């Protein structure tokens, strides 16, 4: 069972990868360093990585992670300490990158009804978000099929390694 508990950080629609991980940091290859600049391209969130606590939850509107193909975007959010991203929808490459890294992402309309900083509990297997601050509950998607298998294996590479072993 996968349950995440943390504070909600809310973002708008169309947060692109340049906002999640500004282009000037592209030459970085150290993941901890990458985590320190997560979300720093969003106005008002330049110091996000200092304010976020381990386990916190990122909530966003539609098309989260649009823009470039940089996997840095997922890695940065992960290393900043965010436990799960829940958006109305994800840009295709961001979604794929997250699955391949075994990083949890879920789709839900909940962002419209949850307050900034609310305490949340997310049951990723049941597809349920509980707002502990207001007591409200919202449905979210769960992973299924191939994406679930890849995610369960811990990402694409461990998944492929297992497949290769099987022959």
């Amino acid at each position, binding site marked *: 069972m996968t349950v995440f508990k943390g504070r909600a950080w809310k973002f708008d629609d169309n947060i692109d990868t*340049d906002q999640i991980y500004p282009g000037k940091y592209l030459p970085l290859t150290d993941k901890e360093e990458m985590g320190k600049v997560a979300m720093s391209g969003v106005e008002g969130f330049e110091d996000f990585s200092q304010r976020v606590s381990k386990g916190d939850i990122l909530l966003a509107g539609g098309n989260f992670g*649009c823009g470039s193909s940089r*996997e840095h975007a997922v890695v940065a959010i992960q290393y900043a300490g965010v436990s799960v991203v829940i958006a109305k929808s994800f*840009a295709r490459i961001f979604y794929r990158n997250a699955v*391949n890294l075994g990083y949890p992402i879920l789709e839900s309309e909940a962002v419209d009804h949850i307050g900034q900083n609310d305490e949340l509990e997310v049951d990723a297997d049941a597809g349920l978000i509980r707002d502990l601050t207001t007591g409200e509950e919202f449905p979210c998607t769960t992973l299924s099929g191939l994406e679930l298998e890849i995610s369960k294996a811990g990402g*694409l*590479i461990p998944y492929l390694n297992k497949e290769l072993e099987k022959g």
Partner: protein
Amino acid sequence: MGMTIIQKIIAKASGNEEVAVGDKLWCAIDLAAMRDFGGPNVVLDYREMFGDQPVKDPEKVAITFDLHLPARDTQVANNQKLLRDFADQTGVPLFDVETGVGQHTLLENGMVRPYDVIVGTDSHMNLLGAVGSFATGVGTTDLVAAMATGKLWFKVPETHKFVVNGTFQDQVGAKDLILHVLKDVGTDGLLYKAVEFEGPTIDAMDVAARITTMSMVTEMSGKIGLIESNDKTIEYLTEATGGPIEEWHADPDAPYVEERRYDVADIPPQVAAPHSPDNVVSVEDLLGTHIDQVFVGSCTNGRVEDLRAAAAILEGEQVDPGMRLIITPATQNVAKEAVREGLYNIFIEAGAIVTNPSCALCTIGHPGVLAEGDVTMSTSNRNFPGKIGKGGEIYLCSPATAAASALYGQITDPREV
């Protein structure tokens, strides 16, 4: 039931007779490309996960340098060296700092064919749909997996059909069409979807115009855009690859989720205003807007046909005194052709800066960054906030509109110069 082009490509790559929308299939990868951005992470991850294991098929991997070049600081230089060393060790072909934008370099070097499945660390890989391949931007992990195993999974997308009729007005072309379509479809209109363009206007397009059109499908969140072959694409590919090249078409009864029709006869030059590529208006609505800098280039509009369109307007003229006009050919081959045709003379005489082939001012990292509050016209594909400098504003347009605006230091209708 017939199949769309993307279905045919995925069927072939996955070894199936037929595939249906929604199927998730493992496909053989024909080419996995990494760049100087993203590439170093790929190599580090590959080494971490697979150690010294040789790349499965070095011929099906390529490294292109197109973003930060030549290296501007030690970190970038080290990253490039890491890639050169990896190429030496593995036998993967590498196109070094002089060659230019990756997708165009791969195309010019005959490494792209119709029905190919190609992945790369750039979100605009899918412009290769212009020549009938399924190319898509991926992250580091996909690329590592493709290098190690030669396969990746894909979901067969639904396909939209956009039919385009009519003849362009003078000084109006592919970029104006695709901005017009983008306004209609929106930046998330094709999320997880494929699109095929067809109709007389598309039939008449050369490879460069098709590339411009397909490159902007990314801005609609499309997985891939495709255009069936015409004589010009077959001829181009035959020359680049040594041929023979098979035609590619959808079946007459292929399933489309939706069909839209466009007519280009009446569309004026189009401009995407800050800060979204679908924030598109007619150039007429922005006339006189002050511009500090103009960029002609990128994977979207960096071919010699694009440079010709700019040169036709700049010939014998001078850019506005306060104007910084930066022109970047997509590749070394484009640069050579532009020199042969005398386009460099025209640009330099007009007061432009012509830079080395690269992605240049498509994104931050190249000289030419905007000051806060500066405004640029760009032939690139994105105008997100901060894309080429915090506090800068970007208007997207065609090479003709960009060149005309450079002459007057303000947004200008290229039909009026």
